[in-house]
């Protein structure tokens, strides 16, 4: 019985962690970008205030919209939370790791995207369709690169279970510096930028119809619905950063659920996430957004990197 409560307690901790840090990472990226533009920028806590405000505001629902418009924010939010239970953050293994593997994680994200893209077409405006069309096209070409990068990691670990992948690396840290591993990391980093709608693929700060992708799909959302969608995409970013840091560099991760190990694990997790967030901000500040039809080339680079990683793994072994 105590084991059961343990599972619940740890899962709740995991949920709260991802829920709470999602907006923070967004704040850090925005702050760093502001500094690059020689602005002071808003406080790193600003995303929390934004969400709180949005939750209190009324929702404007277009006449055309169907029930899909109303359920999608909840569905996207909930599926992101389920993903948060599958991905190791501060400690490994996560208690519900048997429920789904990395492929499940990717497909759950695809489920959320499927519904958001449908909502883009649901409102009957031109912007929504524009966003859906672009989002689904780019998602299609992200997928092979992402799968191949994950394939490399999974093949090294002999499993697609995230906790096993992470656990194997914590027990043999030397393989973190394996060149195959590093190449797969860089492939997945590009994929992360594309998947979470960052510059140079998409610009999260724009509302210009020529350039927006994700923002165009959710243009008709407001108030509470917008808050849920925004929060979910912030959590998506942190999940991807957690994947990047823990699938490749699970240093100082807690392997038991003792308070001391958790403390170190949390500190290490935050350190890694902040570093990655700053790197994302640097990439965003130093690159221009690519033209839509140049994006496939970028993703081709990610694909080739992952393929090289696999070939290297094949030649020199794990």
């Amino acid at each position, binding site marked *: 019985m105590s084991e059961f409560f343990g599972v619940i307690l740890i899962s709740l901790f995991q*949920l709260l962690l991802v829920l709470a840090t999602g907006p923070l990472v967004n704040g850090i990226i925005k702050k760093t970008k502001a500094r690059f533009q020689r602005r002071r920028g808003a406080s790193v806590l600003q995303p929390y205030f934004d*969400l*709180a405000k949005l*939750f209190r505001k009324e*929702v*404007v*629902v*277009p*006449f*055309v919209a*169907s*029930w899909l418009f109303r359920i999608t924010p*909840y*569905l996207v*939010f*909930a599926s992101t939370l*389920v993903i948060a239970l599958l991905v190791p953050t501060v400690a490994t293994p996560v208690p*519900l790791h048997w*429920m*789904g*593997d990395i*492929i*499940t994680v990717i*497909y759950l994200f*695809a489920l959320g*995207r*499927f519904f958001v*893209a*449908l909502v*883009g*077409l*649901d409102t*009957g405006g*031109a*912007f929504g*369709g*524009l966003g*859906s*069309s672009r989002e*689904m096209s780019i998602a*299609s*070409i992200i*997928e*092979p690169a992402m*799968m*191949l990068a994950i*394939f490399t990691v*999974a*093949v090294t670990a002999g*499993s*697609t*279970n995230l906790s*096993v992948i992470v656990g194997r690396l914590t027990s043999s840290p030397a393989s973190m510096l394996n060149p195959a591993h590093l190449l797969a990391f860089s492939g997945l980093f590009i994929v992360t930028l594309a998947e979470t709608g960052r510059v140079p693929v998409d610009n999260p700060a724009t509302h210009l119809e020529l350039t927006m992708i994700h923002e165009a799909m959710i*243009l*008709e959302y407001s*108030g*509470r619905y917008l808050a849920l969608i925004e929060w979910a995409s912030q959590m998506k970013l942190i999940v991807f950063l957690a994947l990047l840091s823990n699938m490749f560099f699970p240093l100082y991760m807690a392997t038991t659920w003792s308070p001391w190990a958790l403390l170190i694990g949390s500190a290490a997790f935050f350190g890694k996430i902040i570093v990655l967030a700053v790197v994302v901000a640097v990439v965003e500040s130093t690159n221009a957004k690519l033209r839509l*039809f140049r994006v496939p080339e970028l993703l081709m680079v990610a694909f080739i990197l992952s393929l090289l990683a*696999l070939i290297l793994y*094949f030649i020199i072994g794990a």
Partner: protein
Amino acid sequence: MHDWTYLQLPVFLFMATGFAAGALLPVILTGLRRRDVMSRDVFERVVKNFGFIAAFVSSLAGCILALSILLYGEPLHVDLLYTRHFGMMSIHADRLSALFLGTISLLAAAVSVYSLGYATEFLGRRNLGLLVFLYNAFLLSMVSVVVAGHTVLFVFVWEAMSLTTYFLINYDHEDPASRRAAFLYVVMTHIGTALLVVMFMLLYSFTGAFGFESLKSAGPRIPAFERSLIFLCAAIGFGVKAGIIPFHIWLPEAHPAAPSNISALMSGVMIKTGIYGMVRVFFDFLGPDIPQWWGVLILVLAVASSVLGVLYALMEHDLKRLLAFHSIENIGIILMGVGAALLFSSLGNNALAALALIAGLYHVLNHAMFKGLLFLGAGSVLHGTHSRNIEELGGLIEKMPWTSFFFLIGAVAISGLPPLNGFVSEWLTFQALLLGFHISDLVVKIAVPLTVALLALTGALAAACFVKAFGITFLGLPRSDRAMHARESSPTMIAAMASLAIACAVFGLAPGLVVSVLDPIASSLLGTNLSGQVSLNGGMLLVPDSTSTSISPPVLTGLLMAIIAVPLVGAFLLGGRLRTRAAMTWACGLPKIEPRMQYSATGFSKPIRMIFSNIYRATHEIEISEETSPYFRASITYELKTESVFLKHIYEPAYNIIVTSARMFRRIQTGHLQSYLAYIFITLVLLLLFAR
């Protein structure tokens, strides 16, 4: 547990007579009607109701029979008739047959219920007697194909299946497009049948056997070259029926031309008889010890079919053609499992081969369910709006709420998204391929990662395509009067779609159950059992060879349902009661949004068309007619064409060669009796000289 297997034979006879009775009913009644015993109206209603109910009841019997064979493992063997030259013709249904029989019967049961409502549209307009006759004959021949246990019987019922579908495609024979589609189908399918006959004759010449039981594991008795010849004949012969690229050209024409209930059956299960034939011949007859290149060839065909199938589907805005191209894609995914199984088995890793084969067979079952559902949905849309062109539709979610809901379920399932069934079989395919990478063989190391990457691409493109198909058809504003005045379909049609949607959910949520049924099939074909390797506790699916890779769809789904409470309650705590206000969609300041402002299907798929422009080779023409000045345009026509590489570079040249050679033969066909007599004389002399 009591052994009920002695009931198999009566159930089988009941099923067969049921279909036969359903087929004969209109024939007998037509005889009565000739004598003015009943009016046309009564005749049609009787034929429709009793014919489709007979099909429904027989299909249920088929389900029961299939389940009993799958669960007890006792094959059904019925000796039909003894012929002097071919020996005993018999029915032999083992577990593999039972899987396909079950899949066919399950879909046929739903489609029969659907047809009760769907065919009311034909009352007084079309020849309903013919439809009911062909429908039942089609089902009977299709179930016979998968249970036939004798070469000659197989070819006979295979041909019967091909011919009934030919007439069904041609049902709308006033339409020249239907006639063309039916002709193309009958030509293509006979190329396939010819190769199958060659294959069975080759098999006979080396084994002396016609019975499927005596052909089992006949591979080692056949010399290597002939064995590969048999393999190629089977791959192409069955491949034509399965619609794999490059033998697919009939499929996107034929499936939309047939009535929608027939399209569902053709796309959902008829093309699977090709898969059945391949699995039967490759694993049952020609295995074990197969050359490596067989698996590679099937994998290449599989990857080409899946990627090109979905890419072509993206360019379609005819709803039924779009679904037909998705059938090609899904046949490709099934063949990825089959090809990987061949490849792994040729390298001696039968445990992995079993996993890959299970993944493929699982997808057979899944595809039948969601593709059947989607075609029934498309039929419902066609019924309600009289349009298949999605550019004319939109906003149907208001007018046809049930159809749109079930179509959405089918769309989620076919896109391979959790928690529905498409996800599980794609997941298993991924796992089989991932584990296969550990086999130390260069070909595997190259083939496997590429297959994985392209399977991922296929899945994502399918999702894009179904966002388009569902979004443009059912969401937004109606784009025409037809969509504006759409009506929801009848309760029987909705019930049929609901049952298939439930099947999609059940097969997605209980993968352990399905795999435990599929496992004995794989073990009977490959001699390796997965049990003990696939653990099946609590609906959890654990992959062999790796101690920890697992998914648990029921828990995942339960958790997803439960966790929806978090945003609901959390939002309430953070912001109180939800206040909403209805408003117009933003239209850049214009007072009203118009349907024409929405994205069209063509516009939606434009980025994909640009990215994969090498494959599509799209050409577009814009014609602008001006009257007085370039600022006042009278009309603009826009035409966009994508080119089929296969038609242009394979089929057109082949057609030209045939026509040219036929012209050459025409020279000796002079019409003079004397010259024909001379030909006969010359032939006779030559025969006497050479064929002594």
